[in-house]
């Protein structure tokens, strides 16, 4: 790269440098404009809109301060959404890691995940959500679904998996665990294989094996990547929407049975009832939750590095 003087001010640059700088701004202009219109301004506007009572239609848009947030505090549906989303995220992540960790540890030895298994375990992760949600809806079908058929061998009565929100959320969690299992395993495998073999050799000299080896060597050394998977999965789970919409809304998208998650509540308030200001306040809450999780992640990465 050409040396550039530390002299302050634009006029300090030579004409050659100036033409390069002009190129930079010119080339970046359309990109920055797109980012401003499609990302930066809407992000700021969301905060701004959350302070207004705005119905989208009509030009009246009174400023109401924090009233939307006060409304949220007393809104049972909002709290239900927070509760459901947290349960969905927490249970998905914990179940997902509990299942994928033993598999990854078992595989991390001499065995390598053969391309065949690799492909099969990874398949659900790369396939789009809607067709998979439709397929699982068919599996969960109360009358003809294969799940109730399998359970009937164990003497169980048919269950309406997606009919009652309290059951449906667990059906959604199970599907989420299934979909992300391969991703978890691959990341954990990378982490396990980065643990230097000398640690294990030293441990076997000290007589540590099995559980104690896992507890004192594998687990602490795997912790950074475990935490990474934990936080990113939680963030992803907080943005759940598609499966909820496809699997738990009734025919003609009737909301009666929907599992109320945060994005669904935002969708309903904003785009069914057109309470745009109120929905923006909810969106701000979602943003703050995700930002907090991201901060935790940065902190963890820093402290482990």
């Amino acid at each position: 790269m050409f040396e550039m003087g530390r002299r302050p001010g634009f006029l300090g640059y030579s004409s050659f440098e100036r033409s390069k700088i002009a190129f930079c701004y010119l080339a970046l202009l359309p990109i920055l404009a797109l980012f401003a219109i499609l990302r930066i301004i809407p992000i700021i506007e969301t905060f701004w809109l959350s302070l207004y009572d705005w119905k989208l239609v009509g030009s009246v848009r009174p400023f109401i301060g924090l009233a939307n947030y006060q409304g949220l505090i007393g809104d049972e549906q909002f709290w239900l959404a927070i509760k459901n989303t947290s349960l969905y995220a927490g249970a998905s992540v914990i179940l997902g890691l509990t299942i994928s960790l033993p598999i990854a540890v078992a595989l991390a030895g001499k065995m390598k995940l053969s391309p065949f298994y690799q492909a099969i375990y990874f398949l659900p992760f790369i396939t789009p959500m809607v067709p998979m949600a439709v397929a699982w809806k068919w599996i969960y079908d109360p009358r003809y679904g294969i799940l109730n058929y399998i359970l009937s061998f164990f003497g169980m009565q048919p269950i309406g998996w997606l009919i009652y929100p309290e059951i449906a959320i667990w059906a959604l969690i199970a599907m989420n665990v299934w979909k992300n299992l391969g991703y978890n395993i691959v990341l954990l495998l990378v982490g396990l294989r980065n643990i230097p073999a000398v640690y294990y050799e030293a441990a076997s000299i000290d007589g540590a094996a099995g559980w104690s080896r896992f507890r004192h060597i594998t687990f602490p050394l795997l912790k950074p990547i475990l935490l990474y998977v934990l936080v990113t999965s939680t963030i992803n789970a907080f943005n759940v929407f598609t499966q909820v919409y496809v699997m738990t809304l009734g025919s003609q998208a009737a909301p009666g049975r929907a599992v109320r998650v945060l994005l669904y509540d935002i969708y309903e308030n904003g785009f069914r009832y057109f309470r745009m200001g109120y929905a923006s306040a909810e969106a701000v809450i979602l943003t703050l939750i995700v930002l907090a999780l991201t901060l935790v992640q940065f902190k963890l990465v820093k402290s482990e590095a």
Partner: protein
Amino acid sequence: MRDTQHGIGSDTGLPGPGASNRGKKLPELVWSGAVQLALMAGAIFMVIPFLWMISTSFKPPTEVLSWPPNLVPKEPTASNYVGLFGEAPFVRFFLNSVFISTVSTVAILATSVVGGFVFGKYRFPGRDFLFLVLLATAIVPFESYIIPLYARMVRWHWINTYQGIIAPYLIMSFGIFLMRQHINSTISDELLDAARIDGCSEWRILTSIVLPLSRSAGGALGIFAFTQAWIAFMWPLLIANVRELFNMELGLTMFQFRFSTDYGLLMAGSVLSVLPMIIVFVFLRRQIIESIALTGLKS
């Protein structure tokens, strides 16, 4: 970090926890047999939804609702796939998805290469600040600022237009970040200076040096961008209210609300929607898994 690439896909995995008990033959055999068995059981669990989907898609309506269900269709038929061309404009949905994803991919590649090049190879006032702002937008989930974006589309009369559906998918901050890393590590400053001495303008350098040299990272980014646009759901749901504009995901969703009992047809539609992703995955499995594992580790 270099070892990670081997660990995932190739034979040169590092000796892991099992390596130290090489002496004990029998327990190890039992152990690896048990692991293989568990792996196989897991694999069956992973593919059952796919098999069930494919199997149902080849069943005639009477067999779909037969009890007990047959895992393999007794009288296989392609009528569900034929039905996709008739009852619902699935071909149209499919082409919409292809069109939307292609435009998005081209735009993201273009903006990412240009952005990555300028941020990676030049110094100009405000560079670090601008780069930081672009990266920071990636932290905020897209769905959380969907309301003002939607309002803007209403103001621009872009509801029910292709440009409205595509707009948010024209840029990707991760793309700019990725291309910046790639360009910084593969294209030397000397090469660029040599080109300048030969009289190349900065634009010429961009098109005839940087563009061809960013092909490999561009490929990975392209797959990522295409997939992201293909699976778009919430935004098209808001913007596209006429079925001529539905993408595959939206078409399938609306279709399943209308024909909620015709699972044969629905599964055929699902197979069609999954197919492009599976084909790409089969051909590029290793690259995809490696790049996902590595981006996971780096960020």
